[in-house]
C-alpha cells in the first residue's frame, strides 16, 4: 500500500470521526495567552467556527488518532470487519494540524478519539502523548476533548483529565442488551465504572484541602456521553430514562443522541436506514425539558402509549395538549414553574416576564417583544388584554400545529 500523505490521512480520519455528535467547546476554565508565552484562550462560551451542510457546527478539529480497531461494533465504520481504508496519525501530525488550524482561527481546539489498537492501555497512552505535547511543549491553552477508552487503566484516565477540558465515554446504545448484541467487546459495566471514576476524581479535585487550596484542575468542562438512536429497538421512554440516570449518577454535562446514520461498508447485521433526524431532534428537546424546565420523564413520555415521543409536535406542546385542564395560565400571576410549562415560552422569556411584571401588568404585545412564540402560547395563556376563549379546549387545537412543510433545498 502506498504511503498516505497528511491530506489523505486527514480525509480518512475525519471521515471516521464524524459520527460523534459532540462538538462543544464551552464551560471550561477561563484561560488566555496574554503573557505571550502560549497560544489560545477559552472564555466560557464556545465558538462554532463553521457549519457543514449537515447543519452541524464545526468547533473542534474532530479526528481519530487511528481508525485501526480490534473491536467489532456493528454500527461503527471502523469495526475490525469493515474494509474501510485505514490510517494512523503520528503524534507530530496531530499536534501540527491542531496548532496550525488554531492559529488561522479555524477551530477552538482538538477532539481526539481513536480506534482501539493493540490494547486499551496502549491506545490511551498514545492519545495522552498528543495531549501532553500540546499542553507542555506547545503551551496550547485552547480546548481539548479526549474520548476516553473505558478499559484503560485508571491512572491513564486520571492523567487524561489533567490535560483535557472534557472527557467522554460513549455508552453507545440505550440498554445493556443492545450493547451486548451490537458491540460484543464492550462491557456496559466497565463503561459505567469509568464514568464513575471520572466523576469521583472530579469531586476530589473540587474539594479544598485543610489549607483551603484546591487540587489540580480535573476535566473542568466535565464529561459527556453519546447514545446511538434508531439502531436498536429501544423506545424514547427507555432512552430518556437512561439519560436521566446518567445525568444523576455521573453528573454528566451532556448526553448526545446520534441518529443511526448510514456508514460505508455496513454490516449485514445492521441494515442501513434513513437516519431518524426528527426523532433525534425531539429527544434533544425532551432532554432540555428534563434538565431546565422541571419536567419528569414520565410526564414527557406519557402522551403516547408506545413510549415514543410525538414526532409531529414538540414534547412540551404534546404535554400541554394532554393536560389542558391546567390551562390557560395567567402570565401576570402564575408561578415560575408553571410559566416554564407554557408552550412557546423559553427560560429567557420566563425570566423577562418575572422581572417586568413587578412593574406592571403584561399585555399580549409585551410578550411578543419579550421573545415569546405566541403562535404556540396564545391558546394556553391569559394576559391583561388577552383571553384564549374556547381555543384552549377546542377540538382542532392540535391540528393548528401541523408539521411545517419541508424546507426546499436552497440549491
Amino acid at each position, binding site marked *: 500500500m502506498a504511503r498516505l500523505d497528511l*491530506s489523505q490521512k486527514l*480525509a*480518512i480520519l*475525519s*471521515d471516521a470521526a*464524524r*459520527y460523534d455528535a459532540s462538538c462543544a467547546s464551552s464551560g471550561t476554565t477561563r484561560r*488566555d*495567552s*496574554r*503573557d*505571550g*508565552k*502560549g*497560544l489560545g*484562550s477559552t*472564555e466560557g462560551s464556545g*465558538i462554532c*467556527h*463553521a457549519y*457543514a*451542510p*449537515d*447543519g*452541524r457546527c464545526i468547533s473542534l*478539529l474532530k*479526528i481519530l488518532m487511528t481508525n485501526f480497531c*480490534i*473491536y*467489532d461494533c456493528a454500527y461503527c465504520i471502523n469495526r*475490525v470487519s*469493515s*474494509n474501510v481504508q485505514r490510517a494512523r496519525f503520528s503524534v507530530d501530525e496531530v499536534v501540527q*494540524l491542531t496548532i*496550525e*488550524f488554531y*492559529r*488561522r*482561527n479555524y477551530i477552538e481546539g482538538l477532539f481526539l478519539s481513536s480506534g482501539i489498537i493493540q490494547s486499551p492501555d496502549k491506545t490511551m497512552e498514545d492519545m495522552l502523548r498528543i495531549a501532553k505535547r500540546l499542553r507542555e511543549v506547545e503551551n496550547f491553552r485552547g480546548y481539548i476533548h479526549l474520548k476516553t477508552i473505558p478499559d484503560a487503566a485508571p491512572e491513564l484516565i486520571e492523567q487524561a483529565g489533567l490535560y483535557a477540558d472534557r472527557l467522554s465515554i460513549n455508552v453507545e446504545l440505550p440498554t445493556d442488551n443492545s450493547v451486548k448484541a451490537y458491540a460484543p*467487546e464492550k462491557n456496559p459495566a466497565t463503561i459505567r465504572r469509568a464514568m464513575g471514576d471520572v466523576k469521583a476524581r472530579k469531586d476530589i479535585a473540587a474539594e479544598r484541602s485543610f489549607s483551603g487550596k484546591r487540587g489540580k484542575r480535573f476535566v473542568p468542562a466535565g464529561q459527556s456521553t453519546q447514545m446511538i438512536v434508531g439502531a436498536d429497538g429501544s423506545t424514547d421512554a427507555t432512552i430518556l430514562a437512561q439519560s436521566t440516570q446518567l445525568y444523576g449518577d455521573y453528573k454528566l454535562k451532556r448526553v448526545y443522541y446520534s441518529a443511526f*446514520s*448510514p*456508514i460505508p*461498508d*455496513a*454490516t*449485514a447485521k445492521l441494515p*442501513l436506514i*434513513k*437516519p431518524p*433526524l426528527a426523532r433525534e431532534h425531539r429527544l434533544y428537546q425532551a432532554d432540555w425539558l428534563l434538565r431546565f424546565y422541571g419536567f419528569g420523564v414520565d410526564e414527557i413520555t406519557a402522551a403516547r402509549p408506545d413510549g415514543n415521543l410525538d414526532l409531529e409536535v414538540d414534547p412540551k406542546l404534546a404535554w400541554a395538549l394532554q393536560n389542558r385542564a391546567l390551562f390557560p395560565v395567567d402570565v401576570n400571576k402564575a408561578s415560575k414553574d408553571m410559566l416554564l410549562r407554557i408552550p412557546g415560552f423559553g427560560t429567557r422569556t420566563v425570566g*423577562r416576564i418575572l*422581572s*417586568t411584571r413587578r412593574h406592571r401588568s403584561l399585555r399580549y*404585545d*409585551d410578550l411578543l*417583544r419579550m421573545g415569546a412564540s405566541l403562535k404556540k402560547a396564545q391558546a394556553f395563556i391569559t394576559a391583561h388584554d388577552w383571553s384564549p376563549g374556547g381555543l384552549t379546549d377546542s377540538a382542532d387545537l392540535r391540528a393548528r400545529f401541523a408539521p411545517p412543510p419541508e424546507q426546499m*433545498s*436552497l*440549491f
Partner: protein
Amino acid sequence: MYTVPLPRIGTDIAWRDAAKRLIGAGVSPDEVLWNFDTEMDTLFATATPLPPISRRIKAPQSFVEMANWVVWHKDPQRFARLYALLWRLRHQPGLMQDRADPDLAKLRQMEKGVHRCKHKMKAFVRFRDLRQGGERRSFAAWFEPTHHTIEPTAPFFARRFADMDWMIATPDVTAQFVDGNLSFHPGQPKPDLPEDATEALWGTYFCNIFNPARLKVSAMTSEMPKKYWKNLPEAQHIQGLIAGAEAKVQEMRDTAPTVPPERAAKIQRQLRGDPSTED
C-alpha cells in the same frame, strides 16, 4: 442646537463623554445632532461647544453596558435612540427592567445584533500565514462585519493570539497587533494576502467531517449566512458537497456487505485469548 462629532475609532468613549455632558446640562434629545465620522453635511453642522461636565447624572449600570454595545451598530439612529432612552431614565429609573418597553426593546434588539456580529467575527475571521520569518509569526485576515464591530472584538483576538503578530483588515477600521500591542487604523480595501497551503487541509477536513446522510442546508445557512461565504475558504466546497450528498448515501446503501478483511478473524481470536493464533 448641539452637533456632536463622533469619530470612527473610539466611538464608544466619545459618545459616552458627550452624553454625560449633555444630560448633566439638561439638554433634551431634540436639541442634539449626532454626527458619526462626519457623515453629515457640514452645512448643517454647527460647532456649538459641548457644555462642561456640571451635574453628574448617574445612569444605571445596565444602561451603560447596553450603550457600550449599541454604539457599534450600523443604524445611523443609534446615538439618538440611546440618548433618548437616557433622557427618559432620569424620571423612570425602573425603565431598564421593563423588557417590553418599545424604545428599550428596539435598543436591546440592536444590542443583540452587535453581539451576534461580534460572535460571528470571532468565528469566521480566517487568518493567512504571511511567512515573514522573524521571531514572531505573522498572520493577516480580511473581514467584512455587518456592524462596526472590529474595535470591541479585537481584544478577544489579542487574548487568544498573543504569541503572534496579526492584522484584521475591515472596510471600516483595521486592527493591528504587533509585539503585544493592539492598535486601530483607518479601514482599507481588501488587501492581497499570500496563498496559504493550510487552507487546502482545512477544506479537506470540512468536506470529510460532513455527513452526507444528514443534509440540512437551512440549519447551516441560518448559522453561517451566505454573506460570509466569500471570505471563508471552506465555503467553496459547500455546493459540491450538497450536490453529491444523495449519490454518496445511495452508494452506501447499494453496496452489498463485504467479506471482512483477512486480519479481522485473527485479531478477534487474539482478543478472545485464543493462544493458537499467536505467531
